[in-house]
């Protein structure tokens, strides 16, 4: 069954107001920017955004006023600073936060992926993170029934829709990701629906001669969107490096305030991701340079 849609079609079909949105990518790598831009264009509000390290996508969605809550391990861009719009919204109490360790988030996605109501972890014990998650109804303190040692039980997380960006997909939705996959595989397997954008969409069965190399099988994928440089300005392993200058510029707007971020979004997003790419890199030189930079790193 062919699953190729445009980003506009896929987002309109699967991302509803109030949805729990599972966010792919981590930090400066493989964030589903094309899909997130489209969410911002269509504007379904009151989203709960979940992931491990949430970065640019979250900050843009918050600045656009679409986020009510986040559940995550971290919100930041490491070297490039915190997520300024998110931080302000959280400090003002406009966005509520469920703080986890990264393993705790990964464990919740794994529970969802396995069809289990919860999974245990030995992280979180003794900390304020645990107290807050217990208060939120997401965690319970328990004991290993065999040795009676403390464990933490974490409720399964099943996003309504997951967004990820990949190196390649075939028309049936088989996905190949290169480099690390962070929390994404289990998040997708746990989600009720998944939209995958990919640098390149290949004919159905393109990976059938090497099925071990398929990162996510078609069974979990609802829609495939073709978008070269669809993670720009974040990186895609073996395809292109991240665009430090672009990230720094966004963060500079972030530091200046929400209005400046919204201005940046209004000035740059345009009607499609292609238009955005042309706005930011009319000649294509930057993209070629990032691709060249990656070739030297792998």
């Amino acid at each position, binding site marked *: 069954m062919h699953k190729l849609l445009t980003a506009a079609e896929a987002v309109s079909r699967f991302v509803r107001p109030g949805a729990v949105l599972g966010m792919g990518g981590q930090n*400066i790598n493989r964030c589903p920017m094309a899909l997130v831009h489209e969410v911002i264009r269509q504007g379904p509000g009151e989203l709960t955004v979940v992931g491990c390290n949430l970065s640019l996508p979250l900050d843009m969605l918050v600045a656009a006023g679409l986020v009510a809550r986040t559940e995550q391990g971290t919100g930041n861009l490491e*070297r490039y600073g915190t997520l300024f719009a998110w931080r302000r919204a959280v400090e003002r109490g406009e966005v509520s936060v469920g703080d986890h*360790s990264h393993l705790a988030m990964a*464990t919740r996605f794994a529970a969802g992926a396995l069809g289990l109501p919860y999974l245990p972890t*030995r*992280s979180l014990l003794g900390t*304020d993170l645990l107290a807050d998650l217990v208060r939120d109804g997401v965690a319970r303190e328990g004991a290993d029934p065999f040795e009676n040692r403390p464990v933490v039980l974490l409720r399964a997380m099943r996003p309504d829709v997951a967004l990820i960006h990949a190196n390649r997909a075939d028309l049936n939705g088989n996905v190949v990701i290169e480099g690390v996959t962070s929390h994404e595989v289990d998040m997708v397997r746990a989600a009720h629906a998944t939209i995958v954008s990919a640098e390149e969409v290949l004919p159905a069965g393109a990976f059938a001669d090497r099925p071990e190399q398929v990162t996510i099988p078609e069974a979990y994928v609802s829609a495939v969107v073709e978008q070269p440089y669809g993670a720009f300005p974040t990186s895609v392993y073996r395809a292109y490096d991240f665009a430090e200058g672009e990230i720094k510029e966004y963060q500079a707007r972030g530091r200046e305030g929400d209005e400046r971020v919204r201005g940046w979004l209004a000035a740059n997003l345009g009607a499609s991701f292609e238009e955005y790419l042309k706005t930011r890199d009319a000649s294509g030189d930057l993209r070629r340079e990032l691709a060249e930079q990656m070739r030297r790193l792998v």
Partner: protein
Amino acid sequence: MNALPRELLVVEGARQIRDGDLVIVGTGLPLLAATLAQRTHAPDAKLVIESGVIFPKVMPTPVSVVDPRLMHGASRHGTLFEALGGMVQRGLVRTGFLGGAQVDEFGNINSTWVAGKRLPGSGGANDIASHCGQVVVLTDHERRRFPARCDYVTSPGFLGGPGERAKAGLGPLKVKVVTTLCVMEAEDSALTVTALMPGASAQDVLDNTGFIPKFRDSLDTVVLPDPEEIRLLREEIDPACVYFPERKTR
């Protein structure tokens, strides 16, 4: 060739790694320390990165745990669940390096909230502090960073004091905090100053710490880096001064 204060942090950090250790690091000074250890006394030390990179051959100079420079030449590119669950929680990783806005008297770390100000959050830090045998913190020594108690405990040291870590269900831990003034250590106890940085005094430590730390009877002085360590750091590990802007402007 005089070492900068933060270079000394990195070198002293590297010394916490034994040859053959599995070490989990993020980016920044800890990654430089781990890479330096691999290039000097610990060629068989191996890095685990929370994003799913197992045993990379680091290229200069990663700025993120998913930087392609940190994925290079790895044993495996896997998942966060593999790295933090299958290696850290599984007990295979001896040493973890952590940062944080606050480290308190009992080695607890806060990277979530300080005085109503939102910080990035735990990431893998809580997992590392919960499951590694040794946690190393490299940090500037500022009073605000060393309160008696953290505003929020993100990553567990010894919680409220001796015995509390075991009572919570956590395994034993050694904490080593290397600062621009001193080295502090703890093992089911309060942090104790065990060494001073060259040129720093006990009074400097007391003046810049939000609790009154114990001092070991015989205080060591942290050994200065040898020239080869400094050369490696400046020329090979962070040649573009990504983490040493102060070097650029000298």
